[in-house]
């Protein structure tokens, strides 16, 4: 097994070193992040593994705060007439008393960098290129390790990335990475590891493995996210309740149905957050629909539909207001005959389990409640937006998930995708119904088809 690459994440205080680590490790619990200076005062490590094998060790370090004074101090450590090289001078400093007192934080950083393969110098790209940063780079370069500057906060409009690029190339640092730890570019990790591989050729094979592994996992995550949404939609589309032909029973069933659909959607939200390793409270607050990991707007409120842009036909409005379409059965032949016959045929093909009871119930004048199309569209849109937001979000983000309104006309106004139309006819496909048959082969096939439809816009982005 090859040695793993050790990478020290260094930089001025409060430039987002810990945030960068959180994003790279996809771990929101790593270290502590705050908008204040000197939040991290210790050196803490995290290891990136591929198939259980360590590949890269990342070390978070305290921020450098007093590089100028340290440079002055290092000048004093030089004996007259002597020109020691960087590492020699630094070891002299690290052995001295100042490394335990005034420059303790700086000493921690330098010690870690000297023990690493390379350093990742994090820069707050919103800052002007001040002389103190140049002094920091001078001190760091004394460690004799390759340094890769990473410009953080480049997604903000007020960044000065171009100034930094010029200044860094004057200092001989031509490799430069633009990596916003809050909104990392989709191939940001890949760029980071590729740049590192250029700086440290010996680490190239491991880094290449890491790049491939992370890409594969991102892809798998995307597909799984789409699958979770597909399962939600099929569950809701196939959900039905037979109600006795009186108003109280219908009202009670409507309530039950709404509640269970809400719960089912929430379960999907939580599963998606878990999939992307976010905690519930990370997706919270403010003007955003997701508050404390929940959608604020009730899916059964017509206003919600309007907001997401699901169009309602004139006739559909009444149904949508109740959220449920009522399929009246009269003596076994229905108003929505096609759907009902399809349902009967479907259950017959699936082994006739629910064939008898359904026909009997319908003959006795029972009505069938199902969840209406606009609700399905709404659920599909909301969950897809959440998935996209999660895709594009770093684990350092302190602000809540922000959702834009992508133009997914298929879901807004087009025909419902075929798998959902089919699912309507198979009550046993829904985990919300009693006696579901979730591993029915046809259900699985339709889920896969739906999953492809959902993941398409994501793949084209990636």
């Amino acid at each position, binding site marked *: 097994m090859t040695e793993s690459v050790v990478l020290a994440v260094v930089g001025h205080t409060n430039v987002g070193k810990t945030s960068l680590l959180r994003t790279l490790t996809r771990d929101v619990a790593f270290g502590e992040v705050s908008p204040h200076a000197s939040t991290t005062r210790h050196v803490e490590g995290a290891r990136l593994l591929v198939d259980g094998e360590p590949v890269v060790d990342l070390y978070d370090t305290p921020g450098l705060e007093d590089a100028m004074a340290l440079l002055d101090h290092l000048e004093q450590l030089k004996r007259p007439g002597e020109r020691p090289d960087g590492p020699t001078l630094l070891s002299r400093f690290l052995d001295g008393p100042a490394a335990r007192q005034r420059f303790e934080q700086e000493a921690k950083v330098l010690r870690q960098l000297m023990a690493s393969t390379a350093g990742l110098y994090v820069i707050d790209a919103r800052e*002007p290129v001040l002389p103190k940063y140049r002094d920091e780079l001078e001190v760091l370069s004394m460690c004799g390790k390759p340094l890769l500057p990473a410009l953080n906060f480049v997604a903000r409009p007020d960044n000065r990335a171009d100034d930094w690029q010029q200044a860094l190339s004057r200092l001989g640092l031509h490799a430069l990475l633009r990596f916003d730890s809050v909104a990392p570019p989709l191939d940001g990790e890949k760029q980071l590891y590729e740049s590192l591989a250029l700086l440290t050729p010996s680490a190239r094979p491991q880094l290449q493995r890491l790049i491939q592994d992370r890409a594969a996992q991102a892809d798998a995550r995307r597909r799984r996210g789409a699958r979770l949404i597909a399962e939600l939609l099929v569950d809701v589309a196939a959900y039905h309740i037979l109600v006795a032909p009186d108003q109280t029973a219908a009202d009670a069933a409507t309530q039950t149905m709404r509640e269970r659909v809400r719960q089912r959607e929430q379960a999907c939200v939580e599963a998606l957050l878990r999939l992307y390793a976010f905690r519930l409270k990370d997706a919270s607050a403010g003007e955003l629909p997701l508050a404390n990991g929940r959608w604020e707007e009730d899916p059964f409120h017509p206003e919600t539909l309007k907001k997401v842009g699901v169009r309602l036909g004139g006739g559909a409005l009444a149904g949508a207001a109740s959220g449920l379409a009522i399929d009246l059965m009269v003596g076994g032949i229905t108003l929505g005959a096609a759907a009902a016959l399809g349902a009967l045929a479907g259950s017959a093909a699936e082994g006739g389990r629910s064939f008898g009871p359904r026909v009997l119930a319908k003959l006795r004048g029972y009505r069938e409640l199902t969840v209406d199309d606009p609700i399905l569209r709404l659920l599909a849109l909301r969950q897809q937006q959440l998935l996209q937001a999660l895709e594009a979000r770093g684990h350092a983000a302190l602000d809540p998930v922000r959702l834009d309104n992508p133009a997914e006309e298929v879901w807004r106004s087009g025909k419902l995708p075929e798998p959902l139309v089919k699912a309507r006819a198979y009550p046993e496909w829904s985990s919300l119904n009693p006696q579901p048959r979730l591993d029915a082969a046809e259900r699985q096939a339709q889920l896969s088809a739906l999953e492809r439809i959902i993941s398409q816009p994501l793949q084209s982005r990636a």
Partner: protein
Amino acid sequence: LSNADPSQPLSRLDRLWLAEAVRLTEEHAGLLDDAEANRRARARGGDLRQRILTRADWLARQNGLRPALLQWRQSAGLMLVGLALLALLTGSGLVFAAVGDGSRPVNVFWALGVLLGLHLLTLLGWAASFAVAGRGGALGDLWLWLSSRIARSARTAQLMPALLTLLGRQRLARWGLSLLVHGLWLLILASALLTLIALFAARRYDFVWETTLLGADGFVALTRWLGALPSLAGFPVPEPELVRASANTAPEQEAARRAWASWLLGALLVYGLLPRLVLALLCLWRWRRGLRHLDLDLDVPEYALLRERLLPATEHLGVRDAAPHSLPNPQGRGHSEHGSGALLVAIELDDRHPWPPPLPEGVADGGRLDTRQQRQRLLEQLTEHPPARLAIACDPHRTVDRGTLNLIAELARLAAATRVWLVAPPADEAVDHVRREEWRAAIGGLQIEVVDSAPLGWLETGA
């Protein structure tokens, strides 16, 4: 039933089966308490597949699935033995039903129908259900049902769906059940063949055929036709004269008896035993091949979650260099006893702020203090000529760091009186109140006064 040894090593199929059962249990009832199992799986190492299997094995020991599986296997084995015995008895029983005890002449076509009829019917039924539904036949279902009846426990109820899901993935269930069906029929027919040989060897049977409607020619043709295939294997076909002679009364000839007996044996072997043998071997081959390819479906969402736990992409290495109890604080105490003049300096103001502002009479501009050289120069200058009043302009847009605080403290020590001016942002930017507060607190810690507007009046007059 006897107690199964709980630590008995499991076959590959059993391990996969347990993993599937655990997965289904967790899918329906939520994750089990798996801290220890995960730890063990991580300690054992291997790829994700191996880790999932180790975890499932451990969890299954804990929640009783593993003993249930061992017990199921045991009872399934017993059932199999029972079915095999039943098959042997059925085989001999068939023969006795077909040829009787020799006291009456044997109706050859009737006997052949009894021996092969049920077999051919079930074979057709199997082929139909195999082609249409991909199932392994009713006998296989019966076996599964019986074995789950016998090992009657809640755990076993979870095992069966798991096995079917697992085998269903490679469409293996039908091959396995078909293997069972054909194997049992093979036993039935083999037992029948042996019983028939034994009876023919030890007893004397007379053979006739009877009809009410049909003519002799039809029987001659049928005999020849049925005997064609067995004749390839060396079983003689009765001569047409012999067939005609056997109508209604058995001919008293040794050769006739032998010809009919071997014709019957040949038909049983070729139309009964051989097809079942071929099918059983085919199923065995497919079953073995499928078993080799059988694997966990690592794409299911449950395993995606497990991946994070069993094969984490990251792990914490912990704190390598602990935080100090306290950070060195810049000391602000003390100031110069005397001084003369007033001085305004700026620390790390960026190019958005024009500098210096128009200064009143008697106030000197100390310039920007950004580089070490500038700082050094000013500090030396102040040591020689301490000012009476010093104003330091800072941009609260910067993060307060120790370097800046040290510099401010050092400057303040060299002046008789010092104020820090937190410069307002350019008109088009919002005021960052949080940052300003941090600056206030940090400078306040140095016991230096902080002002928000240009202290030019103070610099000029001291008031």
